[in-house]
C-alpha cells in the first residue's frame, strides 16, 4: 500500500467537524427508555401541534356561520354523533394535558419547584385524568 496522505488522515479524529449531526426528528418521540420529563415533553409537543391543527379547523368550521343557519345547524347535528363526541374527548385530553404540563413548564422555567418537576408531573397527571373523566362524563351526558 502506498504511504497514506497524512493530511487526509488528520481529519478523521480527534474532533474536526465541530458540528453535530443534523435533525433526527424521531428522537423527539423516542421516550420509551427515557425519564418522565421526556414523556412530558412528548405530550406537550404532540398535543401542541394537534391543537394548532384543531384551531385552524375550528376557525374554518365557524365560517359556516356566515352562510346562514342551515349549514351550521347541520354541522351541530353532525357533532352529536358519538364518534364526534369521542374526538371531543381526545381534544379535551389534549387541552388538559398541554395546559397542565404547560403550567408545570412555566413554573419550572421561572425557577419554581424545579426540584419537584418529576413529582409535579405525577400530581398534575392525576389531576388531568380526573378533569378528563369529569369532562368526558359531561360530553357524553349531553
Amino acid at each position, binding site marked *: 500500500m502506498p504511504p497514506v496522505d497524512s493530511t487526509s488522515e488528520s481529519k478523521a479524529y480527534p474532533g474536526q467537524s465541530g458540528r453535530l449531526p443534523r435533525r*433526527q426528528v424521531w428522537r423527539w418521540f423516542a421516550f420509551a427508555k427515557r425519564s418522565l420529563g421526556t414523556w412530558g415533553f412528548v405530550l406537550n409537543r404532540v398535543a401542541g401541534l394537534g391543537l394548532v391543527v384543531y384551531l385552524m379547523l375550528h376557525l374554518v368550521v365557524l365560517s359556516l356561520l356566515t352562510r346562514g343557519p342551515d349549514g351550521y345547524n347541520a354541522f351541530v347535528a353532525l357533532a352529536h354523533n358519538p364518534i364526534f363526541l369521542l374526538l371531543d374527548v381526545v381534544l379535551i385530553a389534549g387541552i388538559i394535558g398541554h395546559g397542565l404540563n404547560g403550567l408545570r413548564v412555566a413554573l419550572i422555567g421561572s425557577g419554581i419547584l424545579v426540584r419537584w418537576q418529576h413529582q409535579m408531573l405525577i400530581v398534575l397527571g392525576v389531576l388531568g385524568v380526573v378533569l378528563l373523566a369529569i369532562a368526558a362524563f359531561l360530553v357524553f351526558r349531553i
Partner: protein
Amino acid sequence: MMWTITLKIARYKPGEPARTDTFQVSIDPERTVLDSIEKIWAEQDRSLVFRHACHHASCGSCAMVVNGVEILPCIKLIKDVTKPGGTLIIEPLHNFPVISDLVVDMGPFFERMQIVKMPIVGPADPLPNQEPNEYNRFDDCIECGMCLSACPVVATDSKYLGPAALAAAYQILSSGDGNLSAQAWEAVDGEHGLWRCHVAFECSAVCPSNVDPAGKIMALRRRMTVERIRHLLGLGSSKKKREK
C-alpha cells in the same frame, strides 16, 4: 462467580456499512460494563475501538449508550444492568458524529465548552470547620457528553448550545465575580441558547456526576427573566444595585 453475557455492539468503520456484532463474554458481575468491553477487545476483537482512560468517572471519555440509555460504563457494574445470560446493546453516544465503532467526535462538545470557558477547577465545598474558598477541586462536570446525547433538542437543533455548556454558564455567573464574554452571552441568551430547552430533564436524568444541567438551565432562565423584567420596568439590574 462468573456470568456469561452477550454484548451486541454497534460497529462502523468509515466507508463501510454500519453493522452490529455479537460477542459473548464471561465476566465477574462485580466488574464494570467497560471492563467487559475491554475484555472483548483484549480477547476477541482488536479492531473494536472505544474511548476510555481513567476507569473511575473522572475523565468522562467512555460514555456510551447501553440498552437505550446513556451510561458511564466505567462505574456501571455488570450486575446492575443485566442478569446471568443477559444481553447488553451497546451503541455510541447519540447526537454526535460517529467516527468509528463506539468512538464519537467530541469536537462539537468541547467547542461549546470553549465558548463558555468554564474553569475546570473551582472552590471545594468546605468540610466541617473549614472556611469556604479555602480549598479547590475539579468541577462536577466531567465533560462526558452524555447530556447532549440524551437531549431531544440537540437531536434536531445542531446549533443548540446544549445542557453542559449552559450549566457551565450558570455556574460561572453564580460564582460571584464571574461573567461571560460577549460571544458567550450571544450563545447562552440567543435563540439557540437557554430558551431552546424544552424541560425534558433528560440531561439531569443521565448525568453521572450530579451536575443537574436542567436545574441549572431553569435557574439561569429565572435569573434572565427577572433581569429582563427589571430592565423593562426601568429598575436597572439587580447586580448594579447590589454593587451600590
